[in-house]
């Protein structure tokens, strides 16, 4: 499993890298000191997993995630930020507080391994990397609240001017992406619908 560590403090990155030496299945291929660097390295390395600090200079970890077309697995690392973590809905969130407790890291890695095996079984057919499949997740941020959403949980995209509204569960946050941009990346088999909306047929 390829991983990237994104944290503005060199010592924090060094410490996490040292802790991860105990888990050969997690291979740290690169690191980044801010969101911009992080975006570039995610693009070039295509990691399966990122360790992400929330408070960073320039953009926060959340801002960075919402700029990604498709979010890899994310484990947040933060020193103390109850507020930011509360912003999250319950789904798909794992976070570690710094200084990281080795036991918590072990749990997080184990959980990742489990979901990796499950996803691989379903992903065998879709090998095309540029298209998003139903098991890919996107990061959705609306004001203070954020979610990780798997595409198969989404019922409907609705076009609102230059933005799009995403319907899943009981939520319908607005995202800063146009419907056209989304359409280009979505697997045709998954979503189809009349003009204006993209409907999910799998969910």
């Amino acid at each position: 499993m390829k991983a990237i560590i994104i944290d503005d403090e060199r010592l924090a990155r060094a410490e996490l890298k040292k802790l991860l030496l105990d888990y050969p299945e997690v291979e740290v291929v690169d690191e980044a000191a801010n969101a911009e660097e992080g975006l570039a390295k995610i693009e070039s390395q295509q990691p399966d997993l990122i360790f992400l600090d929330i408070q960073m200079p320039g953009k926060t970890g959340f801002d960075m995630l919402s700029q990604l077309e498709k979010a890899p697995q994310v484990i947040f690392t933060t020193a103390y930020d109850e507020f930011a973590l509360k912003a999250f809905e319950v789904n798909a969130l794992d976070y570690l507080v710094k200084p990281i407790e080795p036991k918590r890291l072990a749990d997080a890695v184990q959980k990742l391994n489990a979901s990796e095996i499950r996803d691989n079984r379903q992903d065998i057919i879709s090998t095309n990397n540029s298209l998003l499949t139903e098991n890919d997740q996107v990061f959705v941020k609306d004001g203070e609240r954020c979610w990780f959403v798997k595409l198969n949980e989404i019922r409907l995209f609705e076009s609102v001017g230059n933005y799009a509204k995403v319907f899943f569960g009981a939520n319908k946050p607005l995202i800063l992406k146009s419907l056209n941009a989304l359409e280009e990346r979505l697997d045709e088999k998954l979503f189809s619908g009349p003009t204006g909306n993209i409907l999910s047929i799998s969910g």
Partner: protein
Amino acid sequence: MPLSNKWKTYWIFQAMGWGSFSLTNTFFAFSFQQLDKNFFYHLLIFLALGLMISHLMREIIIRAAILQKNLRRQAFLFIGLTLAMALLASYFKLETVEQLEILTSKDAQLLNRPDFSYWINKMVLVLSGGFSYFILFFIWNLIYFMFHYVTKSQKQQMDTLRLESLVKELELQTIKAHINPHFIFNSLNSIRALVDENPQRARRAVTELSNILRSSMHAEKAETVTLERELNIVKDYLALENMRFEDRLKVVYEIDEDTLDQPVPPMMLQTLVENAIKHGISKQISGGIVKLISVFKDGYHELVVQNTGQLNGKVNAEGFGLSSTTNRLGLLYGSKAKFDIRQINGSLVEARVQIPVEDV
């Protein structure tokens, strides 16, 4: 007020009231040349009953807790009680005077009017005699209620003042105890990384962190500390931040040695420096500079914290650090101390505190 004091005040008031009443009466009797033995008997009986009945009235007011009732009921009870007490006193006076056979000729005549029965005549006399008691008891009650009203409102004022100063003290304590948990955990994390990489630096960092924690925990009783002492904490703090930010943070000190003995509110400079890091340096990808200046200028001790960054009006004005700084300066120096924060050029933000220098 202690009980014995209350007792004393009450009897002084009683003596003064009834004393001045007797003096005026004697004076008038003297001017109208009615000073005879009977006058003094009447006066003595009147006084004794007045004292006794008004004392009884006080007992009733206390037992029935009339002063604790609402104002409307107080007024009703007050009038009713005065009337009842006046009639009671008047009745006893008449009885006594009759028993001692010193009725004035006018009263004796009235009491023996043949057209009416003895009891009706007596009632009329009691009513007319009750009038002067009513006036006196009315005044007595007015003074009594007024006195209690004034002492009560004075006590309330004192309580309010005491409460205000307590609130202020608590405010100061919470402000002092404030330390950023984000900073503590990040520092501990860096220290853990340094244990292998640079053990010497790690050991020093533990000392620095201990100093900061200790100083913030000892929510000191003193309202001010010397700048030197405050600066020690700030230096430890910045050394730790330097460990975290490495070459992204550059610290410059410009401290006039003469200002080191100046009193400053504890943890105030620390809060400003923390803000400079939190809102300034930590938001800059390539980091920046934090500059501390302490000088005397125009009769003020001027403390300045400059940092690389952009002033974001909304976030800063509401931040805990800045409002607490303004509040603390206000509590300690009134309107004589000044605090402002502004963008001094394209990339520098300056927070400035001016504390009046006390004359030596």
